[in-house]
């Protein structure tokens, strides 16, 4: 019963994603590339995520009529783990840089998204939707990437940045110490799990890969998969609840 439900969920997701892929079309099947998809789950009971007491900044309190929660482990329907990043470990293909410019928003005194996966060199935008000033303070290893610490007062234009080298970079706001997130900079194709733990990595050239799943703060798991030309592979992961 449980299994079939699970299967149903996976199947429907696959169908959905396929439909989406068909609609989005062109990129997915380009040059016989395949894809890797799957689900990341939390193994064990979902941990209690504390509500955040934002009382130090009344703006933040007002912006969150129901208190926001920490996002250390966000577990959705069926134990799906959000905000995990799945990528191909040891990717040796051409360094590809997405041309899209993802947005990292400071909204209601939280980061949206909580985890932002990026290509090395990919430009991203930090914007603020809040009427209180935030400082964006990513903390890379100084030997790997160059960090920065810069405030964005209300109404300030977006900050455009990029990361040179692959690294998991925590980011925080010192003015609102609860605000934390991650930039996950990885080479090669990647995907981030959605609120039910699903992910799909598109544009995977045929071949054998070690698929790596990362979840904060520094948990990783790997699996080996083979992707046929234009085919798809599955890799599911389960992280132990803490």
């Amino acid at each position: 019963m449980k299994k079939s439900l699970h299967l149903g969920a996976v199947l429907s997701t696959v169908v959905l994603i396929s439909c989406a892929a068909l609609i989005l079309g062109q990129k997915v099947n380009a040059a016989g590339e395949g894809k890797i998809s799957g689900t990341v789950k939390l193994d064990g009971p979902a941990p209690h995520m504390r509500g955040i007491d934002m009382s130090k900044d009344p703006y933040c309190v007002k912006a969150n009529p129901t208190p926001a929660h920490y996002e250390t482990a966000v577990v959705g329907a069926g134990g799906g783990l959000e905000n995990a990043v799945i990528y191909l470990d040891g990717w040796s293909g051409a360094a590809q840089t997405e041309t899209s410019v993802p947005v990292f928003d400071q909204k209601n005194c939280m980061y949206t998204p909580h985890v932002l996966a990026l290509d090395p060199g990919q430009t991203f935008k930090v914007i603020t939707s809040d009427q209180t000033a935030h400082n964006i303070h990513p903390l890379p290893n100084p030997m790997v990437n160059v960090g920065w610490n810069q405030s964005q007062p209300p109404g300030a234009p977006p900050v455009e940045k990029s990361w040179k080298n692959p690294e998991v970079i925590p980011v925080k706001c010192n003015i609102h110490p609860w605000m934390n997130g991650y930039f996950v900079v990885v080479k090669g194709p990647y995907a981030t799990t959605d609120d039910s733990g699903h992910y799909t990595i598109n544009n995977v050239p045929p071949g054998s890969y070690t698929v790596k799943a990362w979840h904060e703060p520094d948990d990783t798991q790997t699996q080996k998969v083979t992707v046929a030309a234009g085919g798809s592979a599955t890799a599911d992961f389960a992280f132990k609840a803490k």
Partner: protein
Amino acid sequence: MAKLLAVTIVVIAIASAIPIVMHIWPLPQDISVNGHLIDEQYTDTMWEAGVSFLASQILLAYFIWKYSRPAPNATVKRFPGGAAALVIAAFVLVGTEALALGVFGAKAWGLAYFAPPGADAMPVQVQAGQFAFYFRYPGPDGKFGPLHANLISEANANFFGLDTTNDQDSKDDIVTAELAIPVNREIHLLMHSKDLGHSFYVPGLRVHQDFVPGLDLSIHFTATKIGRYEIVCTQLCGLGHYNMKAYLEVKSPEDFDAWLKQQAALQ
């Protein structure tokens, strides 16, 4: 032009005094047991400083008015008593004034800093860090668990670096982002800084104390009025200094107990 200057000085002096006399921007309302001593000291000082201010400005203005544009054959007159009289006046008037202020003011200071907290004072710990205050109540066991700097993690809401797995005393500690206290109960506030210099200033409470990294300090106070007040940082601590604050909730004992229970449940 000298007369204009004289008039200007008098007008400025009087205009400067008006907002003080009219209490247009008064001291924040006192909500503490010992604050009135500071306020009285402040008022006494305001009288002495205000009189000195007005008297010397008006005297300056008067002399400018009177002694500019002397008659062509005027001779220089000597101030009656000469410099000696003025030196004596300064020593007697200002010396007494300063001495009196110093001696009387010491009482308010002593009550805040020399008198130890009462035996039944409620201990609360406050930690300052860029750019927020966090508070800790010892919980039912009445004991604060030890702090571990290496365990501090704002991302995981472990602001104090508690080890609730291994430290028995930490298990029931209650960590909060605002300082709630029961009204009319003395609070013994144990202060430490996580990172840099900060300060704990509650104007209404007449409490102002810097956090010194590496030093554990404490202050004690009693709030007498239920309400919500702001605790602000006055020691420049970085870019978020202006927004480093927390709320002080002075509650009735019943409300306080309920609040503490509720916070304990949220841990």
